[in-house]
């Protein structure tokens, strides 16, 4: 009697359970609380959080306001990747560039780069051709991304340190410095904060 009830019930419920375990591909908010969190990698929400916090501190410091002809002109210098991952540092820097441009406090030059390499070679060529006066950057932005990894039993922990320095090239002094550390701990990757 029991089997007669249980067997069909299990047959009906088991596929439901199996189906509910998987997740169909769907859109989520970039960097939102539904994002995948992994200890071994820098996730998109980590870049967004680091960029958000450091931009806020940079703007609040007023360092970008201390230029003779505002808005300030920024040039991007070396961003060192000291993690074991191959990362595109623009995931951090571009967000900061967009934010400072939107704030109206600074603009970034795309015709000047480390070792003479311009981000926009066409604009650089046209600028030189037209013999336009090239405005010297008021500041250079350099930085480093560092990873610290430790493990205790099956629990792993990664700390990612995002460091930035804003330097006045005339004096060679860092007029603003920012650091944001993000630590993640767990035994495996998970979905959600």
């Amino acid at each position, binding site marked *: 009697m029991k089997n007669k009830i249980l067997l069909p019930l299990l047959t009906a419920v088991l596929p439901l359970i199996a189906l509910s375990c998987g997740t169909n591909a769907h859109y989520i908010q970039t960097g939102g*609380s539904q994002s995948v969190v992994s200890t071994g990698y820098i996730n998109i929400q980590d870049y967004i959080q680091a960029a958000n916090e450091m931009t806020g501190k940079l*703007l609040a410091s007023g360092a970008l306001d201390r230029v003779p002809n505002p808005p300030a002109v920024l040039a991007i210098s070396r961003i060192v990747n000291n993690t074991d991952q191959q990362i595109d540092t623009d995931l951090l820097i571009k967000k900061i560039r967009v934010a400072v441009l939107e704030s109206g406090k600074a603009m970034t030059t795309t015709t000047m780069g480390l070792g003479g390499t311009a981000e926009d070679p066409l604009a650089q060529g046209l600028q030189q051709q037209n013999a336009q006066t090239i405005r010297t950057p008021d500041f250079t932005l350099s930085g480093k991304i560092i990873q610290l990894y430790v493990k205790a039993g099956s629990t792993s922990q990664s700390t990612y340190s995002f460091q930035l320095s804003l330097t006045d090239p005339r004096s060679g002094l860092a007029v603003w410095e920012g650091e944001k550390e993000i630590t993640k701990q767990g035994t495996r990757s998970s979905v959600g904060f």
Partner: protein
Amino acid sequence: MKTLSFLAVVGALLLAITGCKTSVNSVENARKTGQRQMVPDQRAVTDMALARTVSIVGVNSVMTPGGFLKVQIELLNTSRSPQPFSYHFEWFDANGMQLNSLTTAEFPDVIQGGEDRFISSVAPTPACRDFRVKFIAN
């Protein structure tokens, strides 16, 4: 055998309950020199449990030297358990239009049982006049 199982279950339950309890003691100067500019706030609560564990004590704001609005919120966990949560600042201009920024982030955080702490954020542009902060339990 039954007694053993019962004791094991009770033990595990006690461990689970006591293992999650946290508490925070603190000390600060009694005579404050800084004056906070408190902001009258308007709240929309749909998660009563979160409103208790991440309760909003007060909101204050200041204009930075560069003309950016900086908002600070004091939170208090009235329970004895740590509460993981995330928060998200939204900014609005003088016309009430939301100003979305690429760097607008959802910040994961944890407030310990009985802890009183602050969170803060700086507006992305000097045009921001108003704000809203969303809290979600993790």
